[in-house]
């Protein structure tokens, strides 16, 4: 596992996919739309690569549903 751990809150995420958009535009390009639904019915984003810790997703998320943790190891 990489140094950064992306945490997506399924209860809060509305599936706007702005995090996916910005991660591809300015981040590591490691977020994508998944088949899974969030609790509120949107498309849950998923992590498909190694996060670079730029936190663009964290800043753009209108629902404060995604954050990036620094791994302890």
């Amino acid at each position: 596992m990489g140094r950064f751990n992306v945490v997506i809150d399924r209860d809060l995420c509305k599936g706007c996919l702005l995090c996916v958009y910005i991660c591809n535009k300015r981040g590591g390009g490691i977020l994508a739309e998944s088949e899974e639904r969030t609790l509120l019915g949107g498309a849950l984003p998923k992590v498909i690569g190694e996060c670079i810790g730029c936190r663009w997703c964290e800043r753009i998320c209108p629902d404060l549903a995604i954050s990036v943790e620094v791994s302890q190891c």
Partner: protein
Amino acid sequence: MTHPLDRYLRPGMIPHIWCPGCGNGIILNAFLRAVDELGLDQDEIVVVSGIGCMGRVSGYVNMDGFHTTHGRAIPVAIGIKTARPELKVVVISGDGDLFAIGGNHFLHAARRNVDLLVICANNFNYGMTGGQMGPTTPSKAYTTTTPYGNIEHPLNLVYLAASLGAVYIARWCVTHPLQLKESIKRGLTKRGFSFIEVVTPCVTEYGRRNRMGEPREFMRRLREICVIRRGVDPSEAVIEADRIICGEFRDVDKPEFTQLLWNMIREVSEKASRGEIEVAL
């Protein structure tokens, strides 16, 4: 789950009612980050808002606040600031709330240089009531009340604020979350009337009628339209359907209203207590 900004959100109020991809949440996000980075005490900030989608923000922040009637956020904020000048008073509301029904209050708060930070979420329409046109709706744009295109000319909020003498003026888009956060930090620490306009997508109402697409597509368009420029005069801070100039437009100093008022109250009471003047009570 925990988010680093959780402690600034009022327990039980999240998820907020804003539509998926609505920019209001990005503004809230930037505001909380600014407060966090400045290390401000939550108890020393008051968030005042009016009615509208953006107006709901005062209920979401875990800070003292006031959700006023439509258009009246600024007068309530002036009251709070005047009574308790040591507090940081922030108004966060929509374009309709601040500039249609509440427009007159903006004029005089800026003219008097009351120490407030006013953040306007400009989504070019009345989102909450179903997408009617308002004073910032671009010419030709489609809204519920302009089904054949808007025939009116929109206000340029930056130029307006400049003409009224606001001491700090900036405009950003939600596509500039870092600059917006830094600008909010400036506004929070600046003494005097600070104004930040934030261009933000109303995906559901304005976006749908003007074919802006789903949230990512709307974002992509905004990124194309909203350009950051340095040292632009407020009179040239263009805001049009296909070009929006963003940046900081003014940062100056000037005597502030509540400070002048309290100085005067102190001086007059001292003179009165020495019997030098008579004060009618």
